[in-house]
């Protein structure tokens, strides 16, 4: 294809997106659109898969059968969400194995929030309430994104995710209505998860290198700062309801703007965690890689068994 032809195709492509048309896997697309989608969708899928680990930590120690069943269902949903997203990603011509390889080698990233430890049961509450709350705010606009398979996966994810946040809030509420120690446990979890949850919505607009292009492709519909403000405005009244204090002395409702003003985010910490120096980066990757490697013989055995069954049927037929 000549340069002129590519340019022409690109113009047609941009015009389709501007008209809110969806792009499907076999349609012509600029290479950068394909790469950007692989990057973002796989990062999202990896986050779901790694995201199971901090919560998996508490399944066997959930305080009641009700809580255990809910937590199991939530973690199972996360596996499911990872699978929807990997499948959507594979429609762009990258294999599942390549995607895993990128995760395991550290070439692909996952959400930095999962590199924090879950030290008490209250962390299950804080994760559902705050981390899933922030994730929903991030994900709802994606139901409308330009790449069809991604948008369809996100519709399913968002439908399932609202139970995640509600079960988390319920855990917090129960703790806050409990003993002094239980309430202190809830406050401690909020203190530890608040700032990482704000960071989870991504670097500030000024620092975000992908935002402009992603907005143009409708891969992103609101900027990181807008999403963060929306999250804060929605969450602060919920903390009040719980009787908990947001660990930010600068947090104050601004009558003039109608939004909450908030303090400086420690972006050094964010970049440290992204670069691999968070409290649990190594632990998470080790858990993931060893699960994959230790499961290899099971995958191979299942494949061998399926082939054996096919061969038997062929032998019977002949």
């Amino acid at each position, binding site marked *: 294809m000549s340069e002129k032809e590519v340019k022409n195709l690109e113009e047609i492509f941009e015009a389709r997106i501007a008209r809110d048309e969806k792009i*499907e896997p076999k349609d012509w697309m600029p290479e950068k659109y394909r790469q950007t989608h692989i990057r973002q969708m796989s990062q999202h899928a990896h986050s779901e898969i790694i995201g199971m680990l901090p919560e998996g930590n508490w399944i066997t120690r959930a305080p009641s059968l009700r809580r255990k069943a809910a937590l199991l269902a939530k973690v*199972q949903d996360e596996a499911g969400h990872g699978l929807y997203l990997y499948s959507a990603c594979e429609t762009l011509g990258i294999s599942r194995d390549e995607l895993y390889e990128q995760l395991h080698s550290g070439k692909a990233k996952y959400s930095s929030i999962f590199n924090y430890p879950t030290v008490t049961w209250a962390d299950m509450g804080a994760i559902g309430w705050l981390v899933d709350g922030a994730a929903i705010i991030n994900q709802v606009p994606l139901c409308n994104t330009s790449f069809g398979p991604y948008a369809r996966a996100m519709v399913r994810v968002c439908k399932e995710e609202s139970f995640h946040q509600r079960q988390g809030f319920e855990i917090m509420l129960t703790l806050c209505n409990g003993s002094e120690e239980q309430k202190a446990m809830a406050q401690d979890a909020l203190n530890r998860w608040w700032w990482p949850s704000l960071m989870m919505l991504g670097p500030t607009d000024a620092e975000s290198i992908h935002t402009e292009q992603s907005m143009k492709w409708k891969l992103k519909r609101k900027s990181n700062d807008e999403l963060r403000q929306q999250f804060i405005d929605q969450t602060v009244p919920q903390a009040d309801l719980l009787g908990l204090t947001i660990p930010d002395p600068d947090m104050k409702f601004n009558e003039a703007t109608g939004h909450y003003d908030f303090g400086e985010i420690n972006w050094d910490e964010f970049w440290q965690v992204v670069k691999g120096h968070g409290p649990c980066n190594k632990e998470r990757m080790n858990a993931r890689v060893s699960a994959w490697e230790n499961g290899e013989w099971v*995958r*191979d055995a299942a*494949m061998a068994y399926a082939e054996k*069954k096919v061969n038997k049927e062929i032998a019977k037929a002949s």
Partner: protein
Amino acid sequence: MDNTKKNWPLWEVFVRSKNGLEHRHFGSLHATDAEMALENARDVYTRRSEGVSIWVVESKNITASNPQNNGELFEPAQDKVYRHPTFYNLPDEVKHM
């Protein structure tokens, strides 16, 4: 036989959400064979009673049209307006036809 380098094939999943409706494409997944694909589809796509029937088809068995040929494939239908009821002029007195 050496299976170690073999990846599980990709399957497309179609789910009928209730009787009376058609099966609709829900997504895809990896499985060693049709039986496992059905079981995995149950867990991945119908955790909240989304279906009463599942079809799985190995993705390599699907032949898809190429959007780059959409011109030859679909444009011939565009100049055949006489296939639509509104092409025909009827007097207003004929209300429902």
